[in-house]
């Protein structure tokens, strides 16, 4: 990976946008990278959308606020509209194509479509869609190692939910190999 990856993850409230970002940051920290996670907590939350800024860097993180991103992960249409323009030239946009009904308009970024919500539905649990998206992100950017993601799950999930970890890892692998 480059010296610093700037990731914006965005979608509706309830899709696990903030927790996906938190898992990603945690895994980055477990790799001894410098990380920050900043959620949207302002007025945009009132509209039911959620987003977070995640920075994973070899160097100390300056501002945790992202004015531009190297990778954008979007799980709804309004988020693509809002953030398509902030992706750096040559950056990556990962789209949940089961929920976003348009294509990326820009030609100077790499667009990756993955029907994550449909895939999660096939797994029998819609809540894994965010993890499938992260799988795609990891495959595209090598931002973190899969094994550290599992360690992050152990840290972040309360013990009573640890039984879900094998399924979460399956979802991650589905996303990685799509």
């Amino acid at each position, binding site marked *: 990976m480059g010296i610093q990856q700037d990731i914006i993850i965005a979608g509706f409230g309830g899709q696990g946008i903030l927790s996906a970002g938190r898992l990603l940051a945690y895994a980055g920290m477990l790799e001894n990278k410098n*990380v920050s*996670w900043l959620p949207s*907590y302002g*007025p945009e939350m009132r509209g039911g959308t959620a987003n977070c800024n995640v920075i994973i860097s070899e160097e100390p993180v*300056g501002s945790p606020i992202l004015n531009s991103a190297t990778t954008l992960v979007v799980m709804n249409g309004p988020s693509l509209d809002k953030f398509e323009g902030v992706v750096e030239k040559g950056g990556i946009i990962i789209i949940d194509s089961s929920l976003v009904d348009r294509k990326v308009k820009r030609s100077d970024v790499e667009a990756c479509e993955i029907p994550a919500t449909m895939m999660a539905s096939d797994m029998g649990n819609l809540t894994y869609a965010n993890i499938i998206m992260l799988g795609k992100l990891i495959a595209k950017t090598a931002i973190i190692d899969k094994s550290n993601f599992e360690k992050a799950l152990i*840290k972040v999930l309360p013990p009573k939910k640890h039984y879900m970890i094998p399924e979460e890892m399956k979802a991650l692998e589905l996303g990685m190999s799509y």
Partner: protein
Amino acid sequence: MGEKLLMKGNEVIAEAALRAGCRHYFGYPITPQTEIAHYMAKRMPQVNGTFVQAESEVAAINMVYGAASAGVRVLTSSSSPGISLKQEGLSYMAGAELPAVVVNIVRCGPGLGGILPAQCDYFQTVKGGGHGDYKIYTLAPCSVQELYELTVDAFNISDRYRIVTMIMGDGILGQMMEAVEFRDEHEEKVIPYDKDWATTGTQMKRDKNVVTSIYINPEVLEKHNQKLQAKYATIAQEETRVEVFNCEEADIIVTAFGTVARIVKNVIKLAEKEGIKVGLIRPITLWPFPDAAFRQYSETAKAFLSVEMNAGQMVEDVRLAVNGKRPVYFYGRMGGMVPAQSEILNKIKEILAK
């Protein structure tokens, strides 16, 4: 140091307070700092502490007054409009020389304003806020790790000088998650102070202690004020903190505190690529203000630029410190807008082209 954890700024403040021996929290919820109250509500009963969600901010600060009078470590937290409501209590606590830690996770005003990050309470905290001649020792952390370190220090300094200490942050610091490493419990820097002035009950073995801010006799009150001012002078001497970064040979020195200082550090890297040497003076204590650092670098830097999330507040203290030796400029955003790196860099170029 212990294990590295990824935690929210607000939660780290609460955890740091517990580690510093604080067992009493009184507050009233307000965004963007409510996680402090959440955390305390959960943890205080586990450590035999007291958590009270007061009926208002005014009630909460008076509960703090009571707990501090009894000599225990006590915390309250709020955000700008709530801190305004606490001002009377803070003035009384200054008068009564009560130690306590108050957190202000600043949001944008005036009035109810908005919940996004701002630094528009600098004047309120540093220049008084409440009535009377008094000071609040004000710390402005810029990272989650520093929220931990400075919250622990805040309790020690409060007790040492019998002064209210304020931790001043903003919604970004409160809401963001970063890595934090806590010291092992037995290594925590908790300094116990003998509070022989506290109202803990005489057990019929000593004279009574009185904690008050009322002094009707003018001679006595003037003496009391002189004592307070002497204490403030000692604190300014002993406890001023500042980070000086890249200032040797800098053409221009940017000054910023809290979140904005982080943005400026990125700007310094950008400027370096364009051959512009930019330094940073980051006041860690807003009061006492680190005048000496500004005096020192006003010998070498061509100009100063204060960047703040307000209409220009700290810049007044920068001007006083620089004392006309060099031009002092200002760039600010308000209303929850955060200055972008490019905006700050453009302002630097504009100043250097003059």
